[in-house]
Structure formats: structure tokens, C-alpha cells
């Protein structure tokens, strides 16, 4: 770790954000690909940036001089760049409301085990389940058996507090010396959250993690209630989201945090979607700079450019300075 990087890590108090880069640049549409990781503190800012070519393949070998970072419109000096060196914390938030049953649940269990196996050295995984209630089943771990045991007991039922779950996951993804990815498996419907869309956007701007969504296409239209089989009361509706992938809230949150929305068709391999999110997040540059010429407090709009032709750059839209 360079002195600058070490100092930045020490100063990072929990105001960072994470985005996943598009490692293999496979077939995902450009707007769906998370690419930048970002962290900010009073003194230093660390931002994740994914750079891809026309074919959506990651471009490697870039140095600090290849980037231009504008903080509230003011060009900053990029002090350092790293690639693939910081460990990753992956928080997986699974919607286990009554809509997720049968085969989907089975595929989810398999996908979780595979995702744990796909973690890199030093990476960790945390599993949070939510229906109307938010429950951490497994704290950050690298132990596949722990995850296997946790997902084996997953049962679906109840209503959905999606926005609450995302807010909690964003706030709790805070370890300052690690990149933070929050991967949400959801159909985009919400029926029980007290958190509003506006509040969640604010939370996303003030926290570090990158939000990525894996959306099961077969589960788009959950609009009503569980059958009385649920031990919980029937589902109240508090907010409605449009169908995926046009869900404006999920798209907006992904863009705000530099994340992605990956819709999956019915019967598709959920494992592949999870792996893609992780790979894309892993293959991003981390830029370090100390803001100059701007006020520290308030919202900082970010704009990252690369001095090359025909590349796509993806980074979060901004951060809150403290």
C-alpha cells in the first residue's frame, strides 16, 4: 500500500461508495454495468471507475494521468490509481417474501453457494434476508459451509420491505478499508417499507456501497397479497414500483451509486447473474484524490473522464462531504 493509499484508508470514516466494474465486458448493456468504486472523507476521496471499450471489455493498464476527475466542476489532481487490490465486502440482500417460492428459491440457494465460492482472496460475504422483516442470516464470512447452512433454512413468505432493507444494507456496509458492494435480489415491489424513495436516494448518496440489482423477470408482477398460508398478516401496499426493468427507482439508485440492474429471464441461471455483478465490480480502477477548490460540506457532483477515444466510463454521480 502506498503512503497515500494508507493515509486515505485511515481517513476514510465511512462516507464511501462502491461500484462494480465490468470485468469480462460480456453482453450486458452499457447502462447496466457498474464500474466505479468511491470513498470520500474529509481529507481524501477514493472513487471507483470502470473503463470499457466499445465491446464492453474492461480496459486495463491505465495510470493516474489517463483520468480527469471533476468535483463540483473543479478539475482535481488524481494522486494515485489502483486496480483490483482492495478486498471486497459483498452484502447480498435476498427478497424472500411470498413471491419467491419453489424453483426460484432453489436456484437462489444454489446461487448463493456459488457466489461464496467465487469470492476472491480477502473478500467476504454477508447474507441479509428480507420480507417485511430484515434479518442478517450470516455476517461477513468466507466460509462456504456457513453460507450453505444459512441458505438451506431460507423460507419464503410475507410482504416486502425492499426500501427499508436497502437502506439498512447501505448503512451497515461501512468497513472503511474495504470496497462495498450491496447486491439485491428483488422483483422491485415494495409493500411494507417506512423508508421513502427520496429518503433512500439520500441514504445512497451519504453511504459508500454500490447498489446492484438482480431482478427475476418471472416475479415482476407482485401487486397483491399472500394467501392466508403465511404466518404473517396479508400484505399491505405502501408503495408500488413499476415493472422491471423500467423500474425508475432501481435504475436511479444503481446510477447514483455506480451500480447496475440485471434483469434475468424466468429459468435463467441466477448464479451467472451474481457472478457477473461480482466480476464487474471487481474489475474497476480506484482513484484517489484530495479535493481542492471546492467546499468540503454538502453534495459533491462527480464527473470522471478518460483521455482515450471510444471508451465508456462509469462512476458514481457524487458524494456527500462531511
Amino acid at each position: 500500500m502506498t503512503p497515500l493509499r494508507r493515509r486515505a484508508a485511515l481517513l476514510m470514516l465511512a462516507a464511501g461508495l462502491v461500484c462494480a466494474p465490468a470485468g469480462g465486458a460480456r453482453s450486458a448493456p452499457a447502462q447496466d454495468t457498474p464500474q466505479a468504486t468511491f470513498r470520500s472523507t474529509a481529507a481524501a476521496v477514493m472513487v471507483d471507475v470502470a473503463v470499457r471499450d466499445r465491446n464492453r471489455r474492461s480496459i486495463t493498464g491505465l495510470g493516474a494521468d489517463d483520468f480527469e476527475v471533476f468535483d463540483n466542476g473543479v478539475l482535481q489532481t488524481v494522486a494515485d490509481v489502483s486496480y483490483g487490490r482492495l478486498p471486497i465486502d459483498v452484502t447480498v440482500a435476498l427478497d424472500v417474501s411470498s413471491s419467491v417460492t419453489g424453483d426460484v428459491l432453489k436456484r437462489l440457494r444454489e446461487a448463493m453457494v456459488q457466489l461464496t465460492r467465487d469470492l476472491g482472496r480477502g473478500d467476504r460475504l454477508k447474507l441479509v434476508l428480507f420480507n417485511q422483516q430484515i434479518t442478517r442470516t450470516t455476517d461477513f464470512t468466507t466460509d462456504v459451509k456457513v453460507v450453505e447452512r444459512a441458505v438451506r433454512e431460507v423460507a419464503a413468505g410475507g410482504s416486502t420491505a425492499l426500501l427499508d432493507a436497502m437502506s439498512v444494507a447501505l448503512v451497515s456496509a461501512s468497513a472503511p478499508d474495504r470496497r462495498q458492494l450491496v447486491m439485491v435480489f428483488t422483483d422491485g415491489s415494495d409493500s411494507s417499507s417506512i423508508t421513502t424513495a427520496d429518503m433512500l436516494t439520500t441514504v445512497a448518496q451519504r453511504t459508500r456501497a454500490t447498489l446492484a440489482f438482480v431482478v427475476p423477470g418471472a416475479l415482476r408482477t407482485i401487486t397483491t397479497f399472500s394467501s392466508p398460508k403465511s404466518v404473517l398478516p396479508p400484505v399491505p401496499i405502501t408503495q408500488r414500483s413499476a415493472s422491471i426493468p423500467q423500474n425508475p427507482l432501481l435504475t436511479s439508485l444503481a446510477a447514483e451509486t455506480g451500480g447496475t440492474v440485471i434483469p434475468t429471464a424466468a429459468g435463467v441461471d441466477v448464479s451467472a447473474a451474481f457472478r457477473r455483478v461480482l466480476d464487474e465490480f471487481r474489475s474497476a480502477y480506484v482513484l484517489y484524490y484530495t479535493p481542492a477548490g471546492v467546499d468540503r460540506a454538502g453534495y459533491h457532483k462527480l464527473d470522471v473522464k478518460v483521455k482515450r477515444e471510444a471508451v465508456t466510463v462509469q462512476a458514481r454521480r457524487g458524494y456527500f462531504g462531511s
Partner: protein
Amino acid sequence: MTPRGSFAAFAAAAAATILHAQDPPRAPQPFRTGAEVVFVDVSVRDGGRMVTGLRAEDFELTDNGVRQRIEHVEATAVPIDLTLVVDVSGSRAWTARTSPATAAARLQAELDQVLRLLRPEDRVRLFAADTHVQLVLPFSAPAPPPAVERLEFDGLASLYDSLAAALLQPSEPARRHVVVARTKGGDTISAVGAAEIQGIAERADALFHIVMMETEFDNEVALRGFQCNRDLMGICAPTRRFWTPFQRRLFTGGQLHPLTADGQTIAAAAAATGGALHKTELLTEPSLTGTFRKAFEDFRSSYVLRYTPEGVTRGGWHAIDVKVRGPRSYTVRSRRGYGADEPQAQPVPRPIPSEPRTLADLTAAYEQRAYPRFAAGLRAVSDPVRLMKEFEAAGNPWPAAPAREAVLALELAEPAIFSSQPAARERAHALLARFTNLVRDPIEPNDFERYWHFAVLAMLQGSLRPGAADPFVARALRRFPDEPQFALARAIVTDQLWPVAGRTVVTDERGSPTAAHVRTVRSEYEAAIALPEVAVEARVRFAWFLHRIGRNGEAVSQLAQAARQPIADPALRYLRLLFLGHALVALDQHERAAEAYRGARAEVPAAQSARVALMNVRLLQGDRAAAEALAAEIETSGSREIDPWWTYWQGQYRHLHVALTRLREMTR
């Protein structure tokens, strides 16, 4: 306690203990001549003087000829429930000459005379017999004098139905029931006949007097064999009389006002209760007051003998004979007997599986009060439509208890109400609509019907289908326009339209509620706020609506006003503070918001929503450490407690369990 008062108390109790049943209500005592103990009213006269001071040993009582041991004699004056039945049916000539207002005024004058005879603890009720049985005046205390506000006539005669309605009134313990009916002696449209009235009278615990009234106006009717009604598509029905009218006697000669066979049956019915039939004089109208005064004096000064029948079989008619040891000049009057049902052999209960699936098993579980298993079975129902079809085809499992069938129907409809299949929901709504009509008391709305509506509305609010709930709310309010819970239901169901029905119904192209919808919600919540019983909940809900449309200052004001009185319901206390926090966040008053959220947490410590809200506002305040600590708390809480917020949009659904428990108790 009035029905409205008792219902409000129920709602408050339900709110305080959402998932706990109330104590069962005191069971009415329908027939005091029960299986074990018989009560007999006895009056003893010596000439025109009531004989007082008699003791048990002074009486001799036989039951079907077998002498019985009198266990107790009570001579204290117990409160009396007096039911007056006045026949206002009759000829078109009479009705043409008499306006309802005039008839009501005349009846009021008579009633006022009767009221003067009553004591403060007595009560009076007034039926009018016409095409329909009209309850002109429900049981009321004599003071302040109740008023005859409305009287309708110009119809056929439902005399026997009116008598049945009067006699079937269950006697309350420690009260005695007197029925005084004045009739023109004709019946055209009743569902029951004289024989049924006799059977009812013999089993009723009421003293029954009937007064024959004959006026000049009715003689023309008496001479015709049919009565007709213009309002009922000109329906004409044969007149059943129980005495021969005066003018007919002029033609035929013979005894004055001779009783027909029906008349003799009615006379026997009155005599069986210890009452009598009082004949009319020549075209005169015997006064209610005079008849009642005579009956009342006897009844009020009578003794109540208690004995347990011995040496006689239980079922069938029991002839009673009461004598008093003493001077032969004593005149003893008592009911002549009573009818008792044969003891029924108890059938072997059907075994109930742990998770009953079939209608038969579910019904058995319900009948045996195995409600947890009944509920488990309902949850496992995979084809709710089939269940309802089977239920409707099978008919009432308890033919003598239609109200119980109605409650079972309501419970069986629940899986379909919450079904995602439109056909299932439609069938369930139709079933509820049918039973909503069936549970109507033909005389007056009663407490059972009130609870029925409440349970139906709670269930439909829980299903979050305001379109389906709307007609049920309207029906409930038509029957109980003053019921505060129904006024609140009105507002809640309308409020549900925005989040549930969405933009196609009450929102504009931007997704905001239309001005018309805002006006409607406001007026309905304000109507509920005006009712003290539901004012707090109405304010809390209205405040949340105001917050959602961006009127946060007004929302804060409503929530502050809601807190000016003690809030018994912890869920409401929680929601008030939760919503206050949200309104304050919208007003950028973060510290005050945090304080409100902390208050909500204190009310329901395990609830998740207040923690999440507090976490969010802490982050806004820049207190990341506090926010992260709260996030960790939320993730690891593991509480199974229901967060009041999770059921907020389901309105009064949180009361359903209590409402159903109450209905079950009322129909046992």
C-alpha cells in the same frame, strides 16, 4: 349500556388487546323454565285485595300432577319490561280518515298514561302491527318520556308475526316481561299462525294479555274476507279473524263476539302464561292503560316460586297447578304450564384432524371450538372456491342457529377474500353480501348485526380491495348511521384507493391524488374526527395522508391534537409518533423527528419501522456511528412481533380476530 356504547367499548378494548378475546358476554336467559329450575309467577287475591306475606310452605304446586318442593319464594318487586303491541292495520277507509300523525298522537297519549304506571327501573317497548312488524319504540326507560316519532300504516295485518316478535324477546335475569297486545283480531300476511303463537307463549317467560278492539272503521273490513294493499302490487290476502265481528253477529245472531278457533287458541296462549284475553265491548275500544293497569298490579304484586321438577319427565307440556293453603276465598292466578324440550342425546363428536381440510372437518372443528385447528385448516385451503361451493350446497349445519352459520360463512370466506384469483374473491364478496342481508334483524338493527358489519369491514380492509369494500361500508352505514367505527371505515377505505387502486382511479397523470380525492378523504376523516370514539385514529390516519400530499405542517398539527387525550391503543401511539417523525423530517426538523422516532421505539420496542426511520434520520444528521449501530440492531433483532406499521394500510383488520371471537361467543 346502549348498543353504540357497548360497541365503542368493544372497539377500545379491541384496540388495546388486538389479539386477545374479550370476556364472553353474560348469556341471556331465554326461557326461565329451563331444564333444571322452573320459575312461576303467582298472584293471590282475596276479593279485590292482594294477599301478601305468603311463604313457601303456604303454596302447593304440582307439575303434571306431581307435587313439587318449592325451593324459594320471592315477593320483591322486580323490574318489568313491558311490551305493547298495537294493531294499526286495517281498512282503507280508516286509514284514509286517519293520518299517521294523528294516529301517532293518539298512541302517544295512551303511552303517556302507561308510562305513569311504571317505575324508574321498568322499561317499555312498542310494536305496531301492520304489513310489517314495526318497532316504534325500543325498550326505553319511562323517564324522560319516550316519544312515538313515527308510525306507518295502510297495510295488511301481520298480527301473529308481531305477537311472535314480542313474545320471543328473551327475558333478562332479574327482570320480568309483560306483553299487552291490542288487536283488531284480523291477520292477513303473517308467516306464523295462532297455533305457533300458542307454542311460543307456552315456552316464553312472559305474561301475555291480549285485548280485543273493535271500531266502526274496521267492521267493513271484518265483513270482507280479504284485505288488499296497494303498495304491494295490489296483493290481497284472506283475513284470518279470531272473533266474529259485531255487525256480522247482527246478521247471524248468537253470542256477542264469539271466538273463532284461532281466537280460542290465542286465548289459551294468553291463559297459559297467566294472562288473559280481554273482550271488546260494543264498538268500544278498550284502553291499553286499563288493561295494563290490571295486569301490572297483579304482576307486580305476585310471588315468584322456584322449584326443580322431580318425578316428571323433562320433555313435553308440563301442566302447573298452584294452590294456597288458607281461606277458600283466595283467588290464585299463575301460568298454567310450560313446554320443555326433550333432552337431546349428545352425539359423539367427530374426530378433528390437526389440519382439517374438508368442509366437514372444518365445520366439526368450528363446532367443537377447536379454533386454532380451524384456522390452521383454513390456511391450508388450496381451493377456496370449492370450499365456498360446498358450504353453500351443504346448507346450514345448525338450522336453529342462522347467526352461527353466518359467522362460519364469514370465516370460511377469508381464504377467498385474500385469494389472488378474481373469481374466488367475487364469490366470497357475493357470499358476504348474501349473509349481510340475512343477518338483518327485521325489527331493528341489533348488536350481532353491528359486529357482523364490523368484522366484514375489517376483513375487507385487510384484503386491501377498497373497491370491494366500498358497498359493504355503505350498507353498514345505512344500518348504523351513528356508528363511529363505520365512519372511520368509510374514510379508511377511501384512503386506501390511492396506494392500492393507484393512478387509474384517484390520481392524475403525475401520480398525485386528484383534488377531488383529496377533498373526499379530508371530509371523511373530518367526519370521523368529530366522533370522539374514533377521533384519535382518524387524526393519525388523516395526518399520514396529509404528509403524503406534502402538507406536513397540517399533519403535525393533527398529530399534536391527537395527543391531547390519552391514547389507549399502543399501536396508535406508535403510529402517531412514527408519522410525526416523518412529517418533521419533511420539515427539516431532524432532531425533533429523531425524538419522535425514539418515542415510537419506546411504545413498541421490537418494531422495526421506527428503528429504520431513526437510522435514516441519524444518517441525515451526520451521526454515522449511531446509524450503523441501529442498522446492526435491525439486522440482528430477530423479533417476531408485528410492527404496527406493517398493518397500517389494512385499517381495522387488526381488530378482526377480536371481532370474530366476539361473534363466535354471541352465536354459541
